């Protein structure tokens, strides 16, 4: 009758600190012995071996039992630390992962690799950083959970930490006016560059190739007009949604892709412009071209992502906003 009990007591006490082990060992033997005796005394015709099995079954998992006896937590991170842990993980992931991914992609592009390689490297680095951050933060919190003097939360909550209510209008009038002013100025600039006064004689040297007036410049102006209409419709709808985000991407692509193509194939700038620059015309042309490509790509991506983030926020806040 001893073997099962011995094994049970061993399993329960082996993870307990030395100081408590002998005492817990003795207490468990008393408890098991009394429970077995009680079952035998009940006289249901049990053999001592059956009674022992039944008593140990009632005690349950020895490690769980030991944890209850010595007040050890049976969870990795408990209710006292959980919210601090969750907020810290979210904060770190939201800040560190996008920045690192962006920096690695940017470094890959500058380093002269292909766009595909740069993106794959960036995403892989971002992913492994995310996994590492979550893991190590969790390890630290699990250790804090197991250190003594665990009575209060790490941070104290005050009403000042309450989040703002969602705005009843996501797209403000200021947003509308700024966007339209920007788009009108952009259209004006496309026209104005044609009439840049460049020499005392009063002759005009357009910045962009005048040949583009055949199709591409009217096209780009039409896209900008379409963006003004889009902005007005967005203002009327008060909130972003997935449709607006999708159309926003189409409009951004419709503008940025032709600009990048024209610039990289050397069709964008007026060749006469560089004739006037002097000996370093090629250098100036390269810098200008890269500047235009970089700006077009960054603005288009930024604006597209921004639209999706705002659409996501709008549908996330939909329920409270409806009640407000």
């Amino acid at each position, binding site marked *: 009758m001893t073997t099962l009990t011995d094994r049970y007591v061993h399993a329960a006490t082996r993870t307990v600190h030395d100081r408590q082990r002998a005492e817990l060992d003795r207490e468990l033997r*008393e408890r098991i012995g009394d429970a077995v005796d009680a079952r035998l005394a009940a006289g249901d015709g049990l053999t001592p071996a059956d009674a022992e099995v039944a008593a140990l079954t009632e005690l349950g998992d020895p490690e769980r039992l030991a944890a209850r*006896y010595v007040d050890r937590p049976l969870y990795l991170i408990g209710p006292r630390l959980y919210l601090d842990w969750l907020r810290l993980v979210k904060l770190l992931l939201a800040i560190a992962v996008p920045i690192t991914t962006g920096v690695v992609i940017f470094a890959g592009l500058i380093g002269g690799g292909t766009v595909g390689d740069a993106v794959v490297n960036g995403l892989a680095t971002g992913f492994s950083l995310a996994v590492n951050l979550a893991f190590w933060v969790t390890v630290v919190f699990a250790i804090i959970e197991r250190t003594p003097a665990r009575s209060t939360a790490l941070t104290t909550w005050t009403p000042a930490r309450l989040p703002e209510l969602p705005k009843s209008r996501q797209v403000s009038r200021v947003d509308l006016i700024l966007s339209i002013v920007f788009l009108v100025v952009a259209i004006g600039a496309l026209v104005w560059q044609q009439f840049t006064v460049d020499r005392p004689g009063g002759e005009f040297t357009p910045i962009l190739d005048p040949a583009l007036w055949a199709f591409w410049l009217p096209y780009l102006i039409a896209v900008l007009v379409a963006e003004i209409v889009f902005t007005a419709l967005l203002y009327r709808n008060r909130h972003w949604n997935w449709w607006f985000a999708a159309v926003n991407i189409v409009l951004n692509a419709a503008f940025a892709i032709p600009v990048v193509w024209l610039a990289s194939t050397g069709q964008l700038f007026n060749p006469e412009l560089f004739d006037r620059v002097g000996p370093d015309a090629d250098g100036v042309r390269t810098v200008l071209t890269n500047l235009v490509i970089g700006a077009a790509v960054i603005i288009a991506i930024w604006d597209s992502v921004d639209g999706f983030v705002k659409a996501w926020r709008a549908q996330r806040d939909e329920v409270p906003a409806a009640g407000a």
Partner: protein
Amino acid sequence: MGTDETTASHLQELRRGTVVLGCLMRLRTPDYGYALLESLNGIGITVDANTLYPLLRRLEKQGLLTSEWNTDEARPRKFYSTSPAGDRLAAELTADWHRIDQALTRLTTGDER
């Protein structure tokens, strides 16, 4: 099934504190775990072994019980008894118990002020 489980969990919650009080009062005469379990259940304070044994340890750690090993019989047994601090706590808990009882009585007789 839902109602039965709800009832059971509320009953368990209501009785949780009374087990502590029952132990502190009952252990004014020293006794060991299994005998205490039997006698508490015998007088109608329902508690199971998985709750009682860890509870005894916790009360001892808080200085409300003292313990001593009795090795007179073949099986060594740990005898617990209520300490002076445990006595004081028992008195306070009993007083509170009566206050709650009076308040609930007022509610049932419709005599609340």
